[in-house]
């Protein structure tokens, strides 16, 4: 089932287009990676998909009964959040707010659901801790759990492993992959790391001067994909 269909999208801000002619679809259960150089418009695309800004041209169609506010979102952290006095529990629970309407307080069912999700992302023992005292990987898992509270259909992850150490990075990818495989959460992830894309993604969207959209296998065999993979390996060696 098609969750999101983008047709002929032109993206940009303040009247300047930075990306045009973008076509891709996201099906239920997909694991889509969005790759591209810095400044190629990855974050702008993310914001457009979240309806935080509107596309300059083209359409985004939501299918399969997906509502605009049913997209979970793992943003890149801001400096403001790093010293915010809040407990893990408070942050996780705030994921429910979007669907609460005017109801002022959380229900018992929501509290139970939050505990189950925290189990899944392995942060149960951190519940009462202060967010700013956690490690980068733990903080990311907290924000991931909050996104899961908001929706279980589709998650948008904006460079979820940037700044994490190798162990935390592997953990994060592992959890995301479990969510995708076991809980059938559709994943859209912005990433720099083409090597990891090869391990986990089902589809790849490459944006920049040249556009590419297709399955991972198609991407790995394409000129643009091969070029990036070799560049990545050279960088590691």
């Amino acid at each position, binding site marked *: 089932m098609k969750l999101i269909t983008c047709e002929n999208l032109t993206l940009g801000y303040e009247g300047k287009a930075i990306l045009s002619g973008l076509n891709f679809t996201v099906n239920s259960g997909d694991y889509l990676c969005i790759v591209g150089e810095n400044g190629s418009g990855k974050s702008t695309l993310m914001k457009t998909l*979240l309806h935080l800004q509107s596309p300059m041209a083209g359409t985004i169609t939501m299918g399969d009964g997906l509502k605009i506010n049913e997209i979970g*979102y793992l943003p890149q952290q*801001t400096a403001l959040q790093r010293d*915010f006095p809040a407990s893990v529990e408070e942050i996780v629970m705030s*994921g429910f707010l*979007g669907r609460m309407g005017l109801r*002022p307080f959380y229900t018992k069912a929501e509290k139970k659901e939050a505990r189950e999700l925290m189990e899944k992302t392995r942060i149960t023992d951190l519940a009462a801790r202060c967010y700013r*005292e956690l490690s980068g990987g733990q903080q990311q898992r907290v924000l991931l759990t909050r996104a899961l509270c*908001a929706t279980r259909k589709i998650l948008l992850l904006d460079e979820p492993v940037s700044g994490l150490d190798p162990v935390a990075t592997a953990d994060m990818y592992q959890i995301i992959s479990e969510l995708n495989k076991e809980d059938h959460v559709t994943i859209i992830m912005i990433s720099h790391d083409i090597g990891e894309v090869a391990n986990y993604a089902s589809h790849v969207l490459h944006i920049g001067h040249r556009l590419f959209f297709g399955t991972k296998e198609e991407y790995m065999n394409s000129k643009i994909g091969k070029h990036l993979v070799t560049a990545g390996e050279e960088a590691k060696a």
Partner: protein
Amino acid sequence: MSGIIEKLTFYFQYPFVWYALIVGILIALCSSLLGVTLVLKRFSFIGDGLSHVAFGAMAIASVLNFSNNMLFVMPVTVICAVLLLRTGQSTKIKGDAAIAMISVGALAVGYLLMNVFSTGANISGDVCSSLFGSTSILTLTRAEVWLCVVVSVIVVILFVVFYHKIFAVTFDENFAKATGTKTDVYNLLIAVITAVIIVLAMNLVGSLLISALIIFPALSAMRIYKRFRAVIICSAILSVLCAFFGIIISILGGTPVGSTIVAVDIAAFFVTSIIGKILER
């Protein structure tokens, strides 16, 4: 000690002392609730900016000889609050610069107007009492006290009902917006409440010291507590205590009310900083 109690019982025979105490505590409560959000959203200076706007509006109102200043000052300040929180998101003039501009501009124009079209003989006295709120808290009328009580109750109710939403909008506006929270509405709510509290607080501490009521309790609470709810509750309690003792001390010592309350707030900040340092170990 018995002398102090005697003096207090003497003063508390007069209703205006009670009025001052009630209004002082209520305003301290409201401003501290909002203060945590404003400080965390990096809007600490909005209190400063808006209070100068309120000062400018007050000057215009008195030059034009309005019978009730509040009816003019309140809407002007609310409009400015909405505009300022808007500019926080636009890119042409950044939030802090916009606040500085409006704040200094309103202060200058206000003083200029009061000077050129002065209605009273004692301009510097008028200006001083608008800026530092020297004695006006002791001349509150019954109607003003009721107004303050009603507004405070509304503010506290709004805060409790929308507490979780205010938390979400403060912590991560983009996430809240993307998942369906009407962030614009809550930002507007925060702006309007801020403006209303500032106009009310002008009577208490004057327009220069309002920022202190907003910032100090929040910062003090953040030294000790690490949960959002605990910070809010601690900030409210601290602020109320500081206002209470500030007013009592100013009665006993004959010091200006506004600056005494702020002085107590500063002392509380140092105490909580030390407690925070000790707890960290």
